[in-house]
């Protein structure tokens, strides 16, 4: 399809859906509050709206359509369709969050049970399901850390948070937003966060360490207990970003390594679909010591009825309206219930097996390397480098990625900054078969062959996509960026 912009499809007088118009007078609005001109929305019939978006959908690549191992750190796994049915059921989708508690016992029970499941999976004592995403959960944890130190009279003293370079950017950005000074540990020669740097950084100003393990390189830091000990000894808290938990479910838990807080991305590890970038769902898990600071309300059970407890005086308060991204919480609950403890462990082991298998295939391709920790295994993902290929051919990793898209799949590089040069991050999860991984590796190999033998084809990619190469960087120039049709018409049309 060469689908136009929706504003180009307007056909004056057409409408997509009718609205009930009761025979009642419309009250007069106060001066200045009546809209003077109708909004410049397109006028379209219902089939035209539908056709437009169906075509756009066909120009998009979901997990369901491809071997989606290329979005490393994102844990692109299959989300069972049956779970979508539960959340589309009116008995979830049509519930108002303020309904009488007697009419929502089922959903409260699901929330309560899900907290219980995540307590066992993490080893923690309480879990809040209110955060809207992983980043929101990181912020929630930081907010609780802040409240914890404040409650102990150390709120003003402890104004530093330590994190690591290979943790998700929000581990740096959220504490900064919460008012902390951020110290970032760089990787040592083996790719582990530099423990000497940690020792140098900790002290009475340390509020917390925010760390991921395995980090986005897929390398598990075996000295994690020591990291925790060092921070604890300095009076700081330790907060575990479990974005990469998919390879270690049932293998090792945040509490077992001594952490005080952790969070899960339910849309990664627990399979809720990624939805073009959310809504997601996060879970913040804490030890008893931090439980008083959890967001309100919590879900409680008195032996016969589930209810919401909003009376939590030390709580950091609300993180989100009402009680979290409930549809995703329902999906995550169902996913865990279908698997059980051994099923979760099988998920982890399969994901790790798939990753190490893919590594063995990819490393046979010319021009690629796997920086750090040579000879050691990776857990559930791996960050590769095309530095050699770039040196040989001038082709950048991004360009390889554009060409890979021509073959019906894709990959991304990784988060900035590119400490690993010309990066590519692959995370195959448990959802793919050996044949899928072979197919993916074969596509990479073919594109690399082109890079060496016919680099122009790679350099001018994509060729089979819905659009061709974009021009220039007008998006960084206030004179040409256009975030809306209004702006586009004014600046570029």
């Amino acid at each position: 399809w060469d689908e136009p912009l929706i504003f180009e499809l307007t056909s004056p007088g057409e409408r997509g859906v009718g609205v009930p118009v009761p025979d009642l007078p419309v009250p007069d609005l106060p001066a200045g509050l009546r809209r003077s001109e109708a909004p410049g929305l397109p006028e379209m019939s219902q089939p035209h709206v539908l056709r437009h978006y169906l075509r756009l959908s066909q120009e998009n690549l979901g997990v369901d359509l491809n071997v989606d191992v290329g979005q490393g750190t994102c844990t692109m796994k299959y989300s069972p369709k049956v779970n979508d049915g539960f959340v589309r059921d009116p008995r979830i989708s049509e519930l108002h969050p303020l309904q009488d508690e007697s009419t929502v016992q089922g959903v409260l029970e699901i929330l309560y049970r899900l907290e219980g499941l995540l307590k066992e999976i993490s080893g923690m004592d309480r879990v809040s399901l209110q955060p809207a995403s992983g980043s929101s959960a990181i912020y929630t944890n930081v907010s609780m850390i802040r409240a914890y130190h404040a409650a102990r009279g150390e709120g003003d003293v402890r104004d530093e948070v330590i994190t690591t370079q290979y943790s998700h950017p929000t581990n740096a950005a959220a504490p900064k937003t919460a008012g902390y000074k951020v110290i970032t540990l760089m990787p040592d020669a083996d790719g582990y966060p530099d423990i000497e740097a940690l020792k140098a950084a900790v002290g009475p100003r340390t509020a917390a360490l925010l760390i991921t393990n395995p980090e986005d390189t897929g390398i598990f830091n075996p000295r994690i207990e020591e990291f925790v000990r060092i921070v604890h000894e300095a009076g700081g808290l330790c907060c575990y970003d479990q974005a990469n938990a998919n390879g270690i479910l049932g293998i090792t838990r945040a509490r077992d390594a001594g952490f005080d807080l952790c969070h899960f991305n339910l849309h990664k590890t627990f399979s809720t679909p990624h939805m073009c970038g959310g809504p997601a769902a996060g879970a913040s898990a804490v030890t008893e010591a931090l439980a008083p600071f959890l967001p309100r309300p919590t879900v409680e059970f008195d032996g016969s009825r589930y209810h919401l407890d909003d009376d939590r005086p030390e709580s950091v308060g609300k993180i989100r309206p009402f009680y979290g991204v409930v549809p995703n919480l329902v999906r995550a609950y169902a996913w865990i219930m279908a698997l059980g403890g051994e099923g979760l462990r099988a998920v982890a082991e399969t994901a790790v097996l798939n990753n190490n298998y893919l590594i063995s295939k990819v490393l046979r391709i010319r021009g690629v390397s796997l920086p750090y920790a040579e000879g050691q295994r990776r857990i559930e993902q791996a960050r590769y480098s095309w530095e050699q290929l770039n040196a040989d051919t001038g082709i950048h990793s991004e360009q390889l990625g554009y060409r890979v898209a021509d073959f019906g799949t894709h990959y991304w590089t990784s988060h900035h900054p590119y400490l690993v040069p010309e990066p590519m991050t692959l995370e195959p999860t448990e959802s793919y078969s050996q044949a899928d991984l072979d197919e993916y590796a074969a596509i990479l190999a073919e594109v690399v062959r082109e890079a060496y033998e016919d680099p122009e084809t790679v350099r001018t990619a994509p060729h089979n996509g819905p659009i061709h190469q974009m021009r220039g960087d007008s998006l960084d120039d206030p004179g040409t960026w256009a975030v809306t049709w209004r702006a586009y018409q004014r600046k570029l049309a």
Partner: protein
Amino acid sequence: MLAAIGAESVEEFYADIPDSIRLHRPLDLPAPLRSEAELVRHMDDLLSRNIPARLSFLGAGCYRHHIPAVVEEVANRSEFLTAYAGEPYEDHGRFQALWEYQSLMGELLEMDVVNVPTYDGFQAAGTALRMAGRATGRRRLLLVGPIDPDKVSKIVDFVRPDHDVEVLDGTEDGWQTADLVVGADVAAVYIEAPNFHGVLDPALPSLAERAHAVGALLVVGCNPISLGAVAPPAAYGADIVCGDIQPLGIRMSFGGGNAGFIATRDEERLVREFPSRLFGVIPTVVEGEYGFGDVFYDRTSFALREEGKEWVGTAAALNGIMAGVYLALMGPQGMREIGETILALTRYAQERLSEVPGVEAPNRDKVSFADFVLRFTGERTAAEINTLLLEQGIQGGLALSDTDALYCVTEIHTREDVDRLAATLQEIVK
């Protein structure tokens, strides 16, 4: 596969995990529901203990509207539901659909810059206020009420490091204009249209001038579904507009449907303060073809970690696509009609219900949209009345106090629904 890797067992891959932190037992979870049939039965048992209200007057930040079927048809497409963060080339459809969402909202809001949705309206308000703070470099934030106390809680927690918050809740359902003293230390004045009690405050159009006079910004939270009939805040001078798009085609889902928008004019000093992704349009090498990408990526924590603005991560993109589909279906005419229908029904409900002895509608003299306050002057509290209504199959409004409750009507209510509520209240309110 193990053989191909040269490994004996999966255990080898875990060699780096010290024994001391290994879990040496299976997770203690319920036995798995291995077949889909058993899982469905288990979930059905749980879901059967949820009872969606057939006739409900709850709003207060989460609204039941009619959801056109096409909205969910699009949102449920595997291609959209299961995609994530692909590049503009192979995820062209997602980029275009979100850019179109931004654009459609831009038309509704009469603003040139709209973000990819953030988590919810609470977050949108918090971020909008911090954007104003960063843009002005000032500490004080004036919040003009009534505002949902939960939202205030979120805002206070979120802006704490950089801002002092002052809430001017006024008396009754409004504030006294004289109380609003905007000093030169004020970063922003925040007000809602309609406010938490549903009222469209007649003072709204006068605020921009007062804020701008001292270099403060006017930040307005609004309900986007009102804007086909009600003037967009930009029209009376708002600098930043924010709110929740849940009313635009997204199910309530026990509060899971909320998603936030933030919009500004196309001024660099405001645009650079957005933490969210902002998609922009860009030409390709083929004439007439559009591509899309991130506008001014170096604002974000994706690009600069803690040096970016706040943070960005997975937010609420699909809700944005849904709201876009909704606006495209409704068009200018539909948005005007739905705004007027709700205004008319809200007025009718206040008039009809205040005819019931023992029931007052204290904001009857103002214009309310969807939400409106009822006051029960009899012996029964608002909560007790809700219990009695529920016995009659009616979910009443949110109890604000013993006497007051926040009721709500939308286009899904008919005049007969309101009459039924009135008749039932007549029996109940003593």
